[in-house]
C-alpha cells in the first residue's frame, strides 16, 4: 500500500473516531482530533486550526440530534456563550504568557479528579 492511500485511510479512520467521541460525549472531539492530525503529519498550528474546522460541522450535526431528543434551555445557552467568547479571548492571550507544560500537567490532574467524581 502506498503512502498516500495510507494517509487517506488514516484520515477516514480519524474522522470516524472523532465523530463518535464528540457525538456520544457531546464534546472532547477536539482533544483527540489535534493529536491525530499531528500524527498524520500536519504542523502544530495547522492541526489546531483544522481541528476547529472539523469540530464545527460535527458539533452542528450533533446539536440538531440532541435538540430533537430534548428541549434546550436557551437562556442558559446565552449566558454560557457570552462567558465562553470572553474566556476564549482571555485564553488566547494567556496562552502566550504561561508555560504550556505546567498547564497541561495541572489540567490532566483536574481531569482525573473530576472524572472520578462523576462516577459517584
Amino acid at each position: 500500500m502506498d503512502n498516500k492511500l495510507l494517509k487517506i485511510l488514516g484520515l477516514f479512520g480519524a474522522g470516524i473516531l472523532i465523530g463518535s467521541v464528540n457525538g456520544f460525549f457531546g464534546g472532547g472531539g477536539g482533544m483527540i482530533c489535534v493529536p491525530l492530525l499531528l500524527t498524520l503529519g500536519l504542523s502544530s498550528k495547522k492541526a489546531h486550526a483544522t481541528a476547529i474546522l472539523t469540530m464545527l460541522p460535527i458539533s452542528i450535526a450533533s446539536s440538531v440530534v440532541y435538540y430533537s431528543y430534548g428541549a434546550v434551555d436557551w437562556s442558559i445557552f446565552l449566558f454560557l456563550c457570552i462567558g465562553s467568547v470572553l474566556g476564549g479571548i482571555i485564553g488566547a492571550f494567556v496562552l502566550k504568557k504561561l508555560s504550556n507544560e505546567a498547564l497541561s500537567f495541572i489540567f490532566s490532574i483536574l481531569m482525573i479528579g473530576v472524572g472520578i467524581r462523576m462516577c459517584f
Partner: protein
Amino acid sequence: MWIFYVLAGVLSGIIGGMGMGGGTLLIPILTIFFALDQHLSQALNLLVFIPTGIISVIIHAKNKMLDFKSFFYIIIPAIVSSILLSMISNGVRSETLKIIFGIFLAVLGVILFIISIINHYKNKKLTKKLGV
C-alpha cells in the same frame, strides 16, 4: 444565578482558547455545580462551541492555517458517526451516561498526564544539550 453561568462560560472559554478542550471542562461543571442533566449539559456544550468555532475558523482561514485536503477526508465519516453516536447517546440513561463520561474524562486525564511528564523530560534533555 445567570452570573455563574457566565463565569462557567468564561472558565471553559479560557481553557478552550488555550487549546485544551473547553468542553471537557464545561460538561462536568454543568452537571456537578449546576446539577443539570447529563444530556442537557452535553447539548449545551455542543451549542456553545458553534459561535466561538465560527469566529476561530474565520480567523484561521484568513491566516491560511486550514488544511482543506485533510478536512475533506475526515469530515464525511465524522459527520455520519457523530449523528449515529449522538442518537445512541440519547438512548442511554442520563445517570449511566454521566458515569461513562467520568471514565472517559479520567482516561483522557491519565493520557494527558503521561504525555506532559514525557514532554517535561524531553525538554529537560533538550535544554541540557543546548547548554541553556
